[in-house]
Structure formats: C-alpha cells, structure tokens
C-alpha cells in the first residue's frame, strides 16, 4: 500500500454488488422510449410524487461522463 497514489488511498471503497436498476413496478416501453408504471400505464416520471426512476446523480457515482457504464 506504500506506493498507492494518495487519491487512490483516500478513495472510498465499497463492494460491487449486482445493482437492480429497474424501477420497481415499472416496465420499459421501447416504442415510447420510457419506463411505464405497470399499474396505471402512465409514464413513470409523470406519476404524482415521482417515486419511479431516480437519476444517477442521486445514486452510485460513476462519473457523469460514463452515463452508468
């Protein structure tokens, strides 16, 4: 660890788990190009309270340029 670059030595380390990105209760509508709430058929982002999809900035960091890669 003596030669570890200080930025790497100070980085937060966490276990990579299998992250289920699919918003609960939603299915992807390929033609609409958006996730739909399965109960109502509405676009998930238009649901009152928007409990569906969350944007990446509020989830695990991967750097904004990688778009979840």
């Amino acid at each position, binding site marked *: 660890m003596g030669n570890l670059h200080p*930025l790497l030595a100070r980085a*937060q380390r966490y276990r990579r788990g299998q992250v289920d990105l699919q918003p609960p209760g939603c299915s992807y509508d390929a033609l609409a190009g958006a996730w739909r709430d399965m109960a109502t058929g509405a676009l998930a982002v238009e649901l009152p309270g928007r409990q569906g999809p969350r944007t990446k900035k509020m989830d695990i960091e991967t750097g904004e340029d990688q*778009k979840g890669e």
Partner: protein
Amino acid sequence: MPDTAADPVVLILASRFDFTCDYVVAALRRRGVVYLRLNSEDLADCSVTLDPVARRLTVVLAGAHFCVTPTSLRSVLFRRPVFLRDYGDDNRSSQDRFARIQWAAFMQNLALFDDARWYNNPASTYGAEHKAVQLYEAARIGMRVPATLVTNAPSHEDVCLSGRQCAVKGLDTVMVREAGDEMFGFTTFASQTDCDDPAWTSAPTVFQEAIRDKTDVRVTVIDDRVFAAEVLVAGKGVTDDWRLHKRSAQFARHDLPEEVSKQCVELVAALGLRYGGIDLALSGDAYYFLEINPTGEWAWLVDAAGLPIDEAVADALSR
C-alpha cells in the same frame, strides 16, 4: 411487416436506465414531437441499418419502422460516453465486450447527421472533458478560477500557498475496480506535509486553491438558458465535496448575477457545446469556476429544486 412511423424529428441516444431521458421523453410527448430513443443495450434487438453516404438510418424497433434523414432530423440528444473506460475487471464475455464497443462506435458514427443540433456533439464533448482546457477557457472569458496546477511533483511553495490546505482531485474520474470492490475518489484536501509523499509521482493530480467557505452552485446551460441551484446541507454550504453528503443535501433555486450567467453561456459556446453542467463555488460574493460536465446530470434538480430543465431541453430539441 413493420408499421411505418413518422420520421423522427428528435433522436435520443441513451441507455434504457438513463432515467434523465425519461424526463425529456415526457416533455417531448407533451409537445407532440416525433422522436426516437435508441438505447445501447437494446440495439441488438432492433434491425438497424445506416447508409453513410445517403445519410439514412433505418430502424425497426418493436415492430415499427423508423427512418432518420437529415431532412426530418432537427436535433440529437447524445447521452452516451464518448469513450469507454477500462475498469480493470471486465467480466463480460468476449462477445459482450465486442458488441459493447461496436455499438458505442455506431452511436458516435451518427455524428454524420451534422445538420442536426447536437446536445452535445460527441467530438465537442470529448474535447471539453479535459479539466485543463476547461480552466483555461473559463479564465480566458473572465471567470474567476482557483489557482491550479496539474502535477506529479507537488512542491510546498507551488501547491500549498501560505501553508493553507489545497483541494486535490483526479485529472479524470478517480474510479477503479479491484477484486470485486469499487473505489471512487472524491475531491479531498492536502497540506504541505502531504506533498512529501513520493506516491504523488505515479500519476498527475490537480492541486487547486481550496475554497473552504463556499456554497456549491450547479449551473445548467442549454443554449442561452441558464438554471442555477445551490447545494445546502443543514441550511449551509459544505466545505468539502458535496457528493459526500448527497443523502442529506438540499437543492434550492439560486439567482446568478447576470454577468456570471452570461459567462456560463459563453463558456459552453467556447467549448463547442450547447449543453453543460457547470460547478461553481460561491465564496463571499465571488463565484469560482470549478469544472464543466458536458454530459452532466440535471434531472434530479427538476424535482429537488423545481427547475424546469426538462422543459428547456425539450424546447431546445424541438425548435
């Protein structure tokens, strides 16, 4: 026989898990704009053909036939990486790795539709991702920029002026994977004694004048429209990287001085972009430019700060 859909006016290049695009889709639908969203992980389930000379992209998606041509296409929302990082533990099969690279290239090759307005063009995004270029351009147009050095040989005199701490960060995103773990580096601080660590020599690092008494301001620019939000934790700005506190962070609309707002628009244009997520730090009455994210996120600000960025993006795409 697939149904023929109207020719798309807007093309969205994304991932199906890029939920920011769902906000744009919803706003485009409210406007009745014809769009096509192509997701990298779904392309193998479509029939896709690109004629580069005729500039015609045909797509059969979920039983519908789409044709993208320069005549109909007005704009492209490009939400894919402009390069793929090697994280060091790619467990994908050779077939998956091959397909991922080829589809990424396919999306970037759609840049041949250069009559359309790109948010952003991947070539411009690539050029604008570089922190040193960003800082130079920001300073050139008159923005206040913290004293910065990129070096693998930090010295007491150059880096930690007057014995104060400085902010240190990677020149690129600090993220590596190892043995099932992931490491992500946030902006941190270094003092003069930290400069003695010989391990700095192994990679270039950004050493920057620390702006401790600050409030972070996130500025989203779409063409000439500007939206700003301040980041607060327990009602105050944070001294370190706000992403370390994001579960408790609050976001509120922020009124930028007109001059700073104009500089943000100018910076985006100077970098050849139409969209940019700019990080500023407000200290006293001074706004410091920290960085710009050409593919920066914004959708969380729609809900958290009440900023109608989704509508602005849809307006820009459908013009």
